[in-house]
């Protein structure tokens, strides 16, 4: 058994900086108790922001508007390309424009419940409060939300909630919100308030006297390693879904910024909480480089089925009704094809594991619109789903009006991330984490249209308020560039790159990434078991060893070298993957996106164990491959009382 799984339990995390008192007043209280920085002093203070997605773009623009000096980084060639841009569905807000009974409290309640009671109530309530301001802000920026003929904003209901609170811009809500944040950021760049470093990747955090004071970064064009200093550092570098190799994340999205921060002392919370989206285009072969999501709305009218018989290779049209298994309708008669994401995903996996999957490799299920076309007519289906059908046909060359779509689940979002307190500060003072990079608001499962809400809440409203308090209390001396902490961090970065380039092995970076991804998908994906996780924990250190022995990275470090970038990110995935498996192994309950086969109800539902696991698992790094220390933050539910979900 792997040495790594003998973790120790350390001191609990007691101080979450969350104010006391009635939940609806806590955010006001915190804003009042937080110290402010005199406007004249703000221009003397620098904040580093890593990432330019919804959270980072919004934070950079807002901090600069407030008068701080901002130094911002993104690996893309332009801040406009951060992966928030690919979000399709929409953004939730408790505006109650429909007069359908929505309220801040209801959005708060839905989010805590949807997260399967593994999120911190204070944070979630604040998110719901701030949600209404986000829509105002985005509309004022010119975000072209969908509107009704009266000129007012349109909304739709999303992800099974009973109120219509999701604002959207066709299927491109993320793009439009991101461009709003990017444009606000561009205004501040042009005004000289933000120093923007595009095509520059953070490779380490500089911690001086216990406080985050800067980063080490690499210019991806010249390869130059540089150090940047600030009074506080904000990580808005996104989630870690790409540890699975195949996911709906952008190809270059990576975990290096948060993992290097973890290595420097920031606890990593709930790494095993990953979300799988049930409706993605299945992989077509070993060449597959990423997975594409198809909007969940397709399940409103499509019927999901597989053949009743194993290994049935007939074309779908040749399989008579009596030989088809509409398994979701059969197992969950009241919710049918509209069961939550995790249930739909696991059911697809189960039928494919039984050998009844369809398409190449048997890793797919049919999503059939024949009945919908017969019922509504082809024109109505086209109006509703035309663009999605077109996208599907472009990728697969199959016409979904005539042949059922094939879908399969894929990794989509990571709820885990760096542990943060109510102020969004990590366990390293002066280091903040916002957006998907932190663990905070979604518990064990994120609701649809809530990622955009959280990213913008953190970036526009929460961080710019809470960071004042830290900056007001900690005026800093300049960091001398030859400070031992700076020298050491820089040396570690350059040594690692040099070591990668020195290897003259026989395997490419991608080959390792694919192998690690397959292992994680099998053992730490949709369903997890004690034995599978232990197997992965045995395999990962061996794979790490093999990586350093056999890796081959062409070229030099002093130029644009995309193979080097990849290999350097895989080094971190090879450590993060181990922590994910350990977290999944230690949490023997099922909750939200984390399904342990040993912990399920009679009808196959996730069975939580509130007695034992009503806590956030925050892990402290102790060295590569050496057992981490677990710090628990107990969760208290004063307003929303834990109940078991049921969809049967």
């Amino acid at each position, binding site marked *: 058994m792997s040495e790594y799984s003998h973790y120790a339990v350390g001191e609990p995390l007691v101080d979450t900086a969350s104010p006391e008192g009635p939940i609806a007043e806590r955010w006001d209280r915190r804003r009042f108790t937080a110290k402010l920085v005199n406007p004249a002093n703000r221009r003397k203070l620098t904040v580093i922001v890593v990432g330019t997605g919804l959270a980072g773009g*919004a934070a950079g623009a*807002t901090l600069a*508007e407030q008068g701080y000096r901002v130094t911002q980084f993104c690996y*893309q*060639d*332009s801040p*406009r*390309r951060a992966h928030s*841009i*690919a979000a399709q569905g929409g953004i939730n807000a408790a505006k109650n424009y429909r007069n359908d009974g929505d309220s801040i409290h209801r959005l708060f309640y839905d989010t805590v419940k949807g997260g399967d009671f593994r999120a911190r109530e204070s944070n979630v309530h604040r998110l719901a409060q701030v949600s209404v*301001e986000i829509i*105002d*802000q985005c509309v*004022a*920026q*010119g975000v*072209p*939300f*969908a*509107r*009704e*003929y009266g*000129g*007012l904003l349109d909304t739709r209901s999303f992800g099974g909630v009973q109120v219509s609170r999701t604002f959207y*811009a*066709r299927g*491109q809500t993320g*793009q*439009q919100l991101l461009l709003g944040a*990017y444009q*606000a950021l*561009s*205004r501040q*760049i*042009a005004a000289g308030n933000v120093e923007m470093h595009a095509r520059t990747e953070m490779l380490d955090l500089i911690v001086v006297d216990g406080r985050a004071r800067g980063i080490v970064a690499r210019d991806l*064009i010249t390869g130059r390693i540089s150090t940047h200093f600030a009074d506080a550092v904000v990580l808005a570098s996104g989630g870690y879904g790409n540890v699975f190799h195949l996911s709906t994340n*952008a*190809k*270059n*999205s990576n975990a290096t910024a948060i993992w290097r921060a973890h290595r420097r002392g920031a606890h990593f919370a709930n790494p095993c909480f990953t979300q799988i989206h049930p409706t993605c285009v299945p992989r*077509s*072969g070993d*060449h*597959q*480089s*990423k997975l594409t*999501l198809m909007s969940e709305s397709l399940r409103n009218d499509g019927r999901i089925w597989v053949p009743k018989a194993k290994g049935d290779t007939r074309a779908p049209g040749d399989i008579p009704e009596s030989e088809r298994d509409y398994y979701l309708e059969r197992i969950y008669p009241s919710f049918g094809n509209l069961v939550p994401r995790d249930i739909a995903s696991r059911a697809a996996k189960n039928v494919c594991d039984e050998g009844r999957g369809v398409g190449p490799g048997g890793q797919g299920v049919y999503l059939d619109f024949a009945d919908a076309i017969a019922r509504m007519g082809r024109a109505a289906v086209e109006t509703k789903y035309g663009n999605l059908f077109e996208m599907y046909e*472009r*990728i*697969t*060359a199959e016409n979904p009006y005539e042949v059922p779509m094939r879908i399969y689940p894929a990794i989509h979002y990571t709820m885990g991330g760096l542990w943060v307190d109510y102020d969004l500060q990590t366990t390293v003072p002066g280091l903040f984490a916002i957006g998907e990079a932190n663990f905070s608001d979604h518990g064990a499962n994120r609701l649809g249209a809530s990622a955009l809400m959280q990213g913008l809440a953190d970036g*526009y409203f929460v961080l710019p308020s809470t960071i004042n308090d830290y900056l007001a209390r900690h005026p800093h001396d300049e960091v001398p560039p030859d400070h031992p902490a700076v020298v050491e961090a820089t040396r570690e970065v350059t040594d690692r790159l040099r070591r990668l380039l020195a290897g003259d092995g026989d395997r*490419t970076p*991608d*080959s390792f990434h694919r192998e690690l991804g397959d292992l994680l998908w099998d053992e730490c994906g949709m369903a997890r078991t004690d034995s599978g996780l232990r197997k992965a924990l045995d395999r990962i250190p061996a794979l790490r060893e093999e990586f350093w022995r056999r890796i081959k990275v*062409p070229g030099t470090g002093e*130029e*644009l070298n*995309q*193979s080097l970038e990849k290999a350097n990110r895989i080094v971190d995935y090879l450590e993060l993957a181990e922590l994910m498996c350990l977290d999944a192994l230690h949490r023997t309950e099922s909750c939200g996106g984390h399904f342990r086969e040993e912990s399920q109800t009679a009808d196959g539902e996730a069975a939580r164990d509130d007695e034992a696991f009503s806590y956030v698992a925050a892990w402290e790094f102790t060295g590569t491959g050496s057992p981490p220390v677990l710090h628990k933050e107990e969760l208290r539910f004063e307003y929303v009382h834990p109940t078991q979900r049921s969809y049967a």
Partner: protein
Amino acid sequence: MNLTLRIWRQRSPEDAGVMTTYEVSGISEDMSFLEMLDHLNEELILAGDEPVAFDHDCREGICGACGMVINGRAHGPERTTTCQLHMRHFSDGDTIDIEPWRAAAFPVVKDLVVDRSAFDRVIGAGGYVSVPTGSAPEAHAAPVPKPVADLAFEHAECIGCGACVAACPNGSAMLFTSAKVVHLNVLPQGAPERESRVLDMVGAMDDQGFGGCTNTGECATACPKGIPLQSIATMNREYLRATLKGAGRRR
């Protein structure tokens, strides 16, 4: 299928660059164009050669990072982004020419990677509404007629890939610039800065070294998002209107 690729290789901005021929085999028609290049790169690495550098990220047609000229056409034979182009649109035995965007304002960085930061500077000149966080009025304070909102959206769909510039014989960025001008200028929220926006953005476009527009329409034909050519005419009217009003640039 088996293909012959002729790819532009250029080590650095200073390097002269040259078309280099590669043979690839075992290409599946289900591969995307970029997966075909991944396949080539894996072979190049194992053979001890340098892989071909190209920009890419989301691989689902929305981030705008990818873009190459394929057989003389920006993003290739289909009207989509390079990442959404699949190999089934080619045939066994084909020879495919692959080059970077070529425009004075987009210098080549390496191989197929170009520097498009000029686009960011055009946006920075006025492609925004000046509304600091927290100062926004209630979202329903200003209704926007649906046709206006839809028009704004149609122009806001631009992904900033640069295909319009690459396709234009003059290397002009008129379609890119007009997409943003029209998106914001038709909305009530964009009205206070309507004149300065168009003057500043057009000025910045010229300053960045983009060429002039001679109405060839290649830009709109190459645009993977279907930004309409009419957008340019609308921007010209906005420009004229601002000039006649005697408005000045802010930058």
